[in-house]
Structures are given as C-alpha cells and as structure tokens.
C-alpha cells in the first residue's frame, strides 16, 4: 500500500504540474491534460484507499502539490520605506454601533433560525428516509446559511433580503408548527 500511495502522490503532483504548465503557457491542451490528470489522480487514490478515504485525500492534496509551482513563480518585492500612518480617529457613533450590532445579530442567531426552519421544512419534503432527510438538512444548512450571509453582506437593499428570508422562514415555520404536515 505504501508504494501505491506513493505512486498516487506522484500522480497528484504531476497533475498539479500539468495545470501549472497550462497556466504558464495559456494552453488549453495543457489545461485539459492537467485537469484530466487531476481527476485521474483522485481515481488512483480511490484504487489505493477505497472510495471514502481516496476521495477525501484526492480532493485535498492539490492544496499541497501546487506549492512547488507557486514557489517557482515566487517574485521578490522591493523593500520600501516605512510609512507613518496618522492615528485613527475613533468617534462614538451610536447609530453605527447599533446598525452593526443589528447586522451581526441578524447574521448570527437570526439567520441560524431562519436557515434551520427553511432547511427542515424543505428536506422533510424529500422522498427519502428520515435519516437521509436529517443528514441532508444538517450538512447543507451551513452552506445555505453561508450563502444567505454572503448575500446579506453584499446586498444594498438589506431590508429586501430580511423580508424574503424571514418570509420564507415564516412559511416554513407555519408548515412545521402550524399543523399543516401529517
């Protein structure tokens, strides 16, 4: 198994090299070969370690194997003089403090409950067993929460975001606790 793992590791490294060459030469051919090699290396890991271990390791390894190429591209920057920055002027702005606190409270506990309600209501519609519904729900929920938090952060019309999310949560909550389900 050690030899096979080593060969799979070599495969992952070669794949990273191929992707790097495609980037370096702006070559579509190298890109295709590199990414195919990357997929192939994941397959090698599956052959060596089984589907669960192999997939996990195969998908995580590029984070390491690309650093040889990144080191080749390392570019030293010229030292510059020290920049003296003026002192930051802190001002007490109660409205800003309240606003930011509100944002944080909405994103943290607020979106936690919104996402939990929506997620449970949605997964319990799925035509799968209850353990599968729970697994999908609890593992997809952080992704949904993350997407909602991202959307809230970039939205210039936060009131609309809150209205839509809360509305969806109310509908979900009514279905869950309003006796609508069997």
């Amino acid at each position, binding site marked *: 198994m050690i030899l096979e793992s080593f060969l799979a590791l070599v495969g992952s490294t070669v794949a990273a090299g191929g992707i790097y060459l495609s980037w370096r030469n702006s070559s579509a051919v190298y890109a295709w070969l590199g990414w195919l090699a990357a997929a192939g290396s994941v397959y090698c890991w599956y052959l060596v370690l089984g589907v669960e271990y192999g997939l996990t390791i195969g998908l995580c390894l590029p984070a390491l194997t690309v650093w040889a190429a990144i080191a080749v591209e390392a570019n030293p920057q010229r030292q510059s003089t020290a920049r003296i920055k003026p002192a930051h002027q802190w001002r007490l702005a109660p409205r800003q403090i309240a606003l930011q606190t509100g944002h944080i409270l909405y994103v943290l506990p607020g979106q936690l409950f919104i996402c939990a309600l929506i997620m449970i209501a949605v997964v319990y519609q799925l035509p799968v067993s209850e*353990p599968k519904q729970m697994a999908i729900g609890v593992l997809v929920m952080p992704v949904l929460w993350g997407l909602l938090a991202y959307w809230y952060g970039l939205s210039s019309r936060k009131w609309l975001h809150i209205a839509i999310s809360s509305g969806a949560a109310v509908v979900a909550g009514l279905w869950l606790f309003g006796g609508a389900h069997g």
Partner: protein
Amino acid sequence: MAKPVSAGSLAKRSLQSHTWLGLVVSAVMFLICLSGTIAVLHKEFERWEQPNIPETTSYTIEQVERAYTSFTEQYNDDTHHYYFVFPGTGIPRLVMEDDHRAHFVDDQGTLIEQENVTWSRMLVDLHLYLHLPHSFGMILVSACGALLCALIVSGLMAHPRIIKDAFKFRYGGDGLKENIDLHNRLSVWGTPFDLMIAITGAYFGLAGVFVTLIAQAFYDGDTQAVYDRAFTPEPELVQEIAPPDIGTAMRDLQGRVNTEGNLLFFTVHEPHTPQQFLEFFVKTPERLIYSENYRYDSAGNYLGKAGYSDGDGGMQTLYSVFRIHFGDFIGMPVKILYIILGMMLTVVSATGMNIWLKKRQTRDALNLLWPAFVWGTPVALVASAVSYFAVALSPTLLFWVAMAVLAGVALRLNDEARIVPLYKQLLAVVIALFWLVYLVRFGTAAFSVAALQINLPLLAVAVWAMWSARRNKRKVMQVAALSAG
C-alpha cells in the same frame, strides 16, 4: 429596467461582504483554526501528558474482566455507563472508566494511575467551545463553520483574477502583496478541504438545534425520539440484575469480526439495572464511519449490530462526520496532512486581517493587538503547559491571563514592527522553558515515544521561531535604514 450588474460591481460587493464577514469572525476563526490544527494530535497530547504510563497494543480477555471487576468493586457511585478503552483508538493503553473517572490498566488487569488530561482537555475545549459555556460555545463555533462557508463563497466571487493569479506569489516589500497572495493562494487551492471542515465543523453545534426543532415539530418535543431515528436506538431488555459477562461477549465478537487493532472500546450501558447491555465499538477499515457497533445482553448473548456500516445512507453519513472533520482515519500520515492543511487555513485567517490593517490609511491599537493575538496565542498555549506541569495551575486560566498580558505588552511597546519578532523569540524561550520543566517533572519518561513525538516537533517550532525572528529583525533594520537614507 434595472441596469445589468457588471462583474466588477459583483466582485467589489462580494469583497465588501467578504471583508465585513471576515472582520466579524477574524479573531474567533483564528483561535478555532489554530486550536483545531493542534488538536488533530489530541490523542498524542493525552499520551504526552502522562508519558510514564506503560504502553501496549496487546491485551487478554481475562485482563479486561479483572480490570472491570476491580473498578466496579472500588467505585460504587451512580453512573450510567462503564467504558473500557482499547489500543485501537490510537492510544496504546488500556483504560477502565465510568462517567466520573478513568484508570489506566496494567498487563495484569490491575488498576493503576488515574487518567489526568487537563491540558489536552483545555486545548480541545478551546476548539469546541472557545472556553465558553458548552451549549452556547458549541453553537458559536458551529456558526463560524457556516460563516466560513460564506467567506469561501464571497472570497471566490471577489476574485475576478482567480485564474490569472492562480500560481502568483509576491513576497517581501511592505508585506501587503505577500499577505494578499498568501491569503488568496492558500484559500483558493484549499477550497475543498476548507469547505469540508466548515460543513462538518458546523454539524456538531447545529445538530442540537436541528434535533430540538424537529422534536418540537414532529415528536411533541421528545428529542430522544429524534436521536432514535438518526441513530440506532438502544435495545429494550428486561433481565436479572447481574454483572455483565464480558468474556463471553468478547469471545463471540472475536469470532464475528477482526478485532485485531480495530476494537476501540466497549460500553456497559445502564449498569446494575435490568436494561443493562454491552456495546462494542469496532473500527471499519476503509470506511469513514466512526465504528460498527455490536450489542450483547448481560449474559453475553449477541443481540445484533447497530447497522452503521450497511444501514441507512443518512445514518452512515452522520456517523462519518467525526472522522472526516478530525482527520481520524488511516493514522499519522493523514494527521500530518490535516495539520498542514489546518495551518494553511489558520494562515488564511491571520492574513485576512493583516490585509485589512495594512490597507487602512490610519493606525490604532488594533495594529498592535492583532499581531500580538496571532503570535501570542501559541506563546500562551505553551506557557499554560509550563505552569500546569510546573505548579499545577489551571491551563485555561493561565492561557487567558497570558493572552491578556501579551496584549498589554504589545500596547506598551507601541511598535507593530517589533511585536512579531519579539513574540517569536518569546515562543522559542517558552518552549525551551517547557522542555526543562517537562524533563524535571517526568525524568526518563520524557524520552519515551509518547513524550518525544510532541516535544521534538515543538523543539523544531522553537528553532524556526528563532530563525524567523532574526529575519524579521533584519527586515526591520533594512526598512529603518531605507527610511533614514
């Protein structure tokens, strides 16, 4: 009609979202990432904390029975479980325990020293709860898992040059471009690992919220009913109250499955009651499920297995989250991989805030407190170990006291260029002091595998810290010379 949103506009707004989210969670995320990375080795730390305990990977059924009998005769306070832990967990020691205490077991089945893993517990509690009250702390840490998902998505969306810059790395200069490139390269290429950690990490705290809501919606508030749907419920038994026949159960188990190196532990549930039963947790090779569990009644008769290896896919998935998140599969090679990837995520957390501070046009206490926090955390962790092993001071208390003192020192120094090299030197010094304390405390046991597998890498960290501090100081002198010239 609304104007079409340009990619630049979306990238800019994504960056604003990413920046806001990053600022909200930066300090907490750094602590969670660093403590989690170190806690990958939590089993090694437990061995290191008591290096004098004799180690073995072999045991006999008679040894186990003797230990169980001695333990139950010695301790008769109320407990809902007894546990016997085997070397299959990755710690080559035998442990007999209940809900209140744990004893190591020697090769005769005699109870020896009590397990005392206070410092390791502090490290794990820092990661799981941030040393906050458990129910609240775990939810906060899990929320950070969800916000890490948000940071990953917003970070990718904020990066229009993601392909152009895929292998770029500028280093040196004033540090801004170095931090930007480190942050971007580590985070983009680490996306699969980071997402996996974020989602599985969020599970531990969110599961409780999920269970409560599902229980309220569908099971009249009965949370146990929800757990029984997700995981195999306990068998319903009515038996004569008697000590469990561990030997019969273990002999039957060894005939059913290969327990060699795979037997993790067994639990005696509800001891001294008619519902008493034994449950053996056996690791399954090539599977991420924590274990397959084999159940026996008090007389050692086989009742069946829990079905985590071949039961409902949802149940198997939930039961696999632990090993995926903590890198607890295959052994040391995967632990080393997780430590490297975990440190990368930790560096991403640190560099994010570095970028924001460097880009700011003004300067204040945050410019001092942030590097003090980043480099002070490892100093505080080692200092807590020094004080714990030297004079049995609470590691949790000492950790936070050290953090507060290091913050105060940074404010007093009032020069961010001096903080990083100084704290790196401090780290090296504290590690050297720790080595001395550890040697005095444990004598020859300090040269056991259990001790050296932690202390040698720690020494390597000290050497690196000294070397890196020298480089930082040289750079500070160069900048000062340039500015003077």
